């Protein structure tokens, strides 16, 4: 388990990738370069990294496929001794599905919405010469009950978890040698995610399938895989056994990623990685990470690091031997709660519905001054509806919402400008919350123009100030949203809210569209701003682990009702409600030592 790459016995290795290189066009810059790893039968390799690191490009290349405009220019993908990249298009097509299969991120778009799921599973078996009567068996393997009703359903009649199981069943149907999973649990609730992960691990073990699991979620990967490859700017920067790599990371980038993962067990300050990954063609002559690296020395900018073996793993870093492989220590968050004061926001017994569908029933919560209250729950629990009711975006509710002691009108249109100014809302997706046809300066100025009486000069001074508060440079004022990264956009959205000096900030899943490293930066930014400006904060999230780092109290929502509420430590450490207990048990935790290695078939293998 502790050998690097293809160190395992040659008979056990099913997949061996060497020197894989993918370029833009025929001779354009490389998107992915020098990627090598090996996966033994029955094992899962995790491929992790931020968005844009090339992990999906590698995953697709394993199937001999590239996205439009890309081309595999070098390397081998040896599967059971046969190079997939050397096959003729016809042989490659036959191999896909039969010997290599793929599970995409979004099962709802991968399944044909006009065909019954039974038909789709049978089709896979028929095309690749399997017996069609194995349909039932294949479904049972993924813990689906192969009743005739089930087979007759269309994809939209299944839940997200069931859809993903169908996709898994189709991928495993023909007993492939290799299965490539591209973030198959993103978008699933934690409990469903856990069950799907157990299914994947069990199937790989029992059928001796080699699997490559692509994910940005380190906690998920750490519980599933035996070996991890960390990708950055198209190269594997660190590869080794999961326990060692997550417990004692060496490469500064891996260290940064792990420091950014929130923990559900301890309240810790999250440290993100500032800056942005260089895009293909702008990766420079030296180490691509040098510009963001705290350990960088002069030669990092000029010399491309070659992989070296340190502490049982392979690392691409010039200073690999200088950096001690140690567990990372993180600062605890100082907890403080002002008790007794009149609440800034009080929600009493609100009931809301969309059309005829109830979304909330009798939800109450209070936000004391200078406090961050986290509202957590799975998708469909009504947490976003709650936020929208408070903000005035959703008007179909009954009950009472009072802000600083005064009841709020239902819709934003009925509220006066002063209330609109004092309650600010930050949207989930920074890619749609900023008008693409306006510059950042115009976006912030419009907010000030609408909600304050400042003169033009004061407005532009305020805009510049507030950009500084969210650590953005002043030149951002003249750029358009599409010139900014996701993290930068979310900072602009935060700056827009802060510009009018609000008293209550509602953050609706503000980090769910962002990378873990960026999420950490944004959460830390919000935490500091809240402390400095004495803001009351409502932090909506599905990520229980994140709650620990930012909130003082938490409200757990379940199907539109409050399942549990209280101080964060109490709710997360001693959950009273079975629902919270289940959520806490299922939330993926970063496995940080060799000892926590899940033994084969015991903790995970129970699904089949």
């Amino acid at each position, binding site marked *: 388990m502790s050998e690097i790459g293809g160190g395992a016995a040659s008979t056990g290795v099913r997949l061996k990738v060497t020197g894989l290189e993918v370029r833009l066009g025929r001779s354009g810059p490389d998107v992915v370069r020098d990627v090598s790893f090996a996966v033994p039968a029955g094992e899962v390799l995790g491929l992790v990294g931020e968005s844009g690191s090339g992990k999906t490009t590698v995953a697709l290349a394993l199937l001999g496929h590239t996205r439009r405009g890309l081309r595999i220019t070098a390397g081998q993908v040896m599967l059971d001794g046969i190079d997939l990249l050397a096959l003729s298009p016809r042989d490659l097509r036959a191999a896909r599905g039969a010997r290599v299969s793929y599970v995409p991120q979004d099962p709802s778009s991968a399944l044909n919405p006009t065909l019954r799921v039974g038909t789709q599973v049978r089709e896979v078996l028929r095309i690749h010469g399997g017996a069609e009567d194995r349909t039932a068996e294949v479904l049972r393997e993924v813990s689906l009950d192969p009743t005739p009703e089930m087979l007759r359903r269309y994809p939209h009649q299944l839940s997200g978890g069931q859809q993903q199981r169908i996709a898994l069943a189709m991928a495993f149907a023909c007993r492939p040698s290799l299965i490539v999973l591209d973030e198959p649990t993103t978008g699933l609730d934690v409990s469903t995610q856990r069950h799907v992960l157990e299914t994947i691990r069990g199937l790989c073990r029992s059928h001796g399938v080699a699997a490559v699991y692509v994910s940005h979620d380190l906690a998920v990967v750490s519980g599933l895989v035996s070996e991890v490859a960390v990708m950055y700017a198209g190269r594997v920067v660190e590869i080794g056994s999961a326990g060692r790599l997550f417990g004692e990371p060496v490469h500064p980038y891996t260290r940064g990623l792990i420091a950014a993962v929130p923990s559900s067990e301890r309240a810790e300050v999250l440290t993100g990685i500032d*800056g942005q990954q*260089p895009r293909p063609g702008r990766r420079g*002559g030296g180490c691509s990470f040098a510009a963001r690296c705290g350990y960088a020395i002069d030669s990092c900018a000029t010399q491309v690091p070659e992989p070296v073996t340190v502490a049982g793993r392979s690392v691409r870093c010039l200073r690999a031997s200088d950096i001690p492989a140690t567990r990372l220590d993180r600062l605890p968050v100082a907890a403080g709660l002002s008790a007794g004061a009149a609440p800034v926001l009080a929600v009493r017994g609100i009931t809301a519905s969309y059309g005829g569908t109830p979304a909330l029933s009798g939800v109450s919560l209070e936000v004391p001054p200078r406090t961050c209250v986290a509202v957590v729950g799975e998708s469909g629990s009504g947490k976003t509806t709650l936020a929208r009711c408070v903000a005035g975006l959703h008007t179909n509710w009954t009950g009472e919402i009072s802000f600083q002691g005064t009841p709020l009108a239902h819709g*934003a249109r009925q509220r006066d400008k002063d209330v609109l100014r004092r309650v600010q809302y930050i949207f989930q997706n920074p890619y749609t*919350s*900023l008008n693409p*046809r306006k510059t950042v300066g115009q976006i912030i100025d419009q907010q000030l123009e*609408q909600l304050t009486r400042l003169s033009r000069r004061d407005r532009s001074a305020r805009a510049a100030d507030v950009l500084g508060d969210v650590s953005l440079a002043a030149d951002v004022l003249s750029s358009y949203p599409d010139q900014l990264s996701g993290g930068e956009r979310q900072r602009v959205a935060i700056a827009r809210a802060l510009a009018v000096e609000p008293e209550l900030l509602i953050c609706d899943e503000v980090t769910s569209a962002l990378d873990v490293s960026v999420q950490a930066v944004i959460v830390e930014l919000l935490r500091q701003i809240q402390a400095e400006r004495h803001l009351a904060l409502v932090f909506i999230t599905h990520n229980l682990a994140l709650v620990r780092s930012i909130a003082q109290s938490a409200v757990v929502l379940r199907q539109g009702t409050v399942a549990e509420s209280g101080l964060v430590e109490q709710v997360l450490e001693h959950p009273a409600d079975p629902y919270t207990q289940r959520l806490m048990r299922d939330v993926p935790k970063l496995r940080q030592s060799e000892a926590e290695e899940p033994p084969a078939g015991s903790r995970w293998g129970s699904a089949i």
Partner: protein
Amino acid sequence: MVTNAPTAAAAQPTPARRPARRPPGRLLWAAARTPRGAIGLGLASIIVLVAVVGPFVAPHPSDALVTLTFGKPSAHFPLGGDFLGRDVLSRVLDGGWVLLIMAACATVIGIAGGAAAGVSAAYLRGISDGIIMRAVDVILSFPQLVFALLLLSLLGPKLWLITLAVGVSHAPQVARVLRSATLDLSERDFIKAAELQGMRPAKVMRKEILPNLVSPLMVEAGLRLTYSIVIIAGLAFLGFGQPPPAPNWGTMINENRVGLPLNPWAVIVPALLIAVLTIGTNTFTDAFARVAIGVDRRPQEAVLIDNLAQESGQ
């Protein structure tokens, strides 16, 4: 290839900000640079040039009887004479600009009316949506030409009325296209953000929605211009246009068709001009639509390649 300086410049965390670049100017220019766009723009420009410069270079007054009825082309009268013996070349050169102005005005009316109706129907929803879109359905149920003829026969053939009638008959199609585009936009969070600022609906539509509709608006404008030209020329052919002595490409086709065997140029040339103009505007619109869609829905890789090309060109 892009040369990477060994310094950290290439790995700069924040990429150098590109200079401000925004539609429609950039998109129009990009469309004009595609082969399709260049051909379309070229064809349309030639005809516009003929129509605009024509009146100043016409060799004879357009209503002077200077040659024989359906006279054959000669050195003096390169395109021969028309049914009254007037110079066809002079009439062709004189007879375009009114048509062009009318088509442009009709397009502006159609786009403005259609955009106002479509955007407000989609953004306001509810009763406004119902009333506006049912009205649109009523107008749509008449064929465009019939609708224009109906208005003209009720109110008499006046140029402003023809322009207005054609413009109004365009509005429903424009309204439909823009309504669906606005429906999509209204659900975006930046619209909600504007509502949370207490912005009035009229201002939301003007300041937040409209700037994001530039591409569909331009495509519609090009398409409607093409139709306007065809319909207005068609109405002139049917006798609803400028009164007789005035030259008009549409009217000329009708007037001179009896003399087709004697002097075909009196019919062919105006017909050709109308055809080339509509083909030109339509081709350019098509090129613009392709570029606009490409920009809006391009895969990430294509954007990368473009950026690289731009940088290496500097």
